[in-house]
């Protein structure tokens, strides 16, 4: 008898404010063979007037770096796929396969000052 494939969506972060870094709740998705992390960036700090960095000569814009991590034991994590640096509001996705069981997203910011922060919603969408 044919059976439709399982699919499951998890709403992981809800209007989460990222100032320095975050780690999402470790998620067990061993039943799934593919996963997509949806990262909806609702708000990003305004880009400053470009001022060249003393060393590189490039302007430093506020950025959010997001990557997936995998783990065999749910406690020691290894970097997997990553998104390019995010510097403006918008919708982003990270596609994963061969991730085993444990999954999480981690993020770090750079170039933020004062109370500046990103506001994000993240979802996992898994498919068998």
């Amino acid at each position, binding site marked *: 008898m044919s059976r439709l494939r*399982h699919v*499951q969506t*998890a*709403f*992981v*972060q*809800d*209007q989460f404010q990222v100032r320095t870094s975050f780690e999402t*709740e470790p*998620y*067990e*998705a*061993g*039943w799934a063979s593919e996963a997509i992390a949806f990262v909806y960036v609702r708000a990003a700090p305004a880009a400053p007037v470009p001022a060249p960095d003393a060393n590189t000569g490039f302007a430093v814009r506020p950025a959010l770096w997001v990557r997936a991590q995998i783990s065999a*034991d*749910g*406690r020691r994590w290894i970097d997997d796929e990553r998104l390019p640096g995010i510097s403006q509001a918008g919708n982003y996705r990270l596609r994963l396969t061969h991730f085993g*069981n*444990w999954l999480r997203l981690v993020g770090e910011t750079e170039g933020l000052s004062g109370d500046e922060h990103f506001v994000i919603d993240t979802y996992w969408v898994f498919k068998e």
Partner: protein
Amino acid sequence: MTETEAIRRALLRADPKLSRFDPLERIIFADDFDEGLNGWAPLYADYDGFDDTPGWRDASGRIGEVKPVAIARRENPARFEDRSQIMLTSLSTWDAGSIGSSNGTYALKVASPPKPGTRGYALKRVSCPWWGKLRFEAYFTFKADHPDYRLGHEDVHSLIFGYDLQDFEEAENPTRWRPFFRYLNAAPDGTLVQRWQGQFDTGGDAMRGSGWTDIEGGYHELPYNRSPTKYQWLYIRYTVDLAKHEYVDFFCHGKELNVKRKTHSFPEGQWQRHLEKCSGLLNVDIGIHTNSDKRCFLFLDSIVLSAEGSER
């Protein structure tokens, strides 16, 4: 015993999946989490102006409109913090690898956030044409996370098993009641209590920790094991009477507690307005509360909900 009942019982006992349950006449659902989430959802807000967005609702208490989510969150952000997910776990640990569930590979994992006083819940909202007895049965186990490799028994505050029940709106004096049980494992200071309690009072809020009364004879050392990664599956069963608004029975891991004819009701006017748009709702609630900054986990291998009584 009638011949029909004898045949039914023989069929149940010959079924490897149902033989370990004792369901009433009609099985509303028999959820095995090897087959997916089966309609269980995490706890999230109504956005309707009661507990999640105070002050939104007018004095009449009628539902005008559900508040736009974004406004509700902006006004009461604390209500939406500390999210945790429900997920399908293969009970994978650092020292044993994947253990699997009691009867298969996957169990439902209900987790509290890693923050003292927080909670994690799974809920399933059903309705039922047989309006008499309603029975919940499950095989479950529980643990605290152990990033420090400690046992974590005292980190688990409590396990919650209950129903949030609403009469059919056409019934005479329809109302809402919440027969709930709590296994109070440890006080917030980490002292083990290990006692079953119930919601027999009026006006308590089971899922926020108020209104609990000790059940006579309810001291019970539920097995936790001496290792943070060894799981012992436990059976629980409880029954209520939807028509009489009474508790019927409670049994867990070898202990039968007498709750017969105990009742639960809310004070006049309180909570009862929730009936609107939820006529005949049978909301099955299971949860875990934590004492510490470690996640606490309630694992469900399988759950059977059954009923008997006349149709309505």
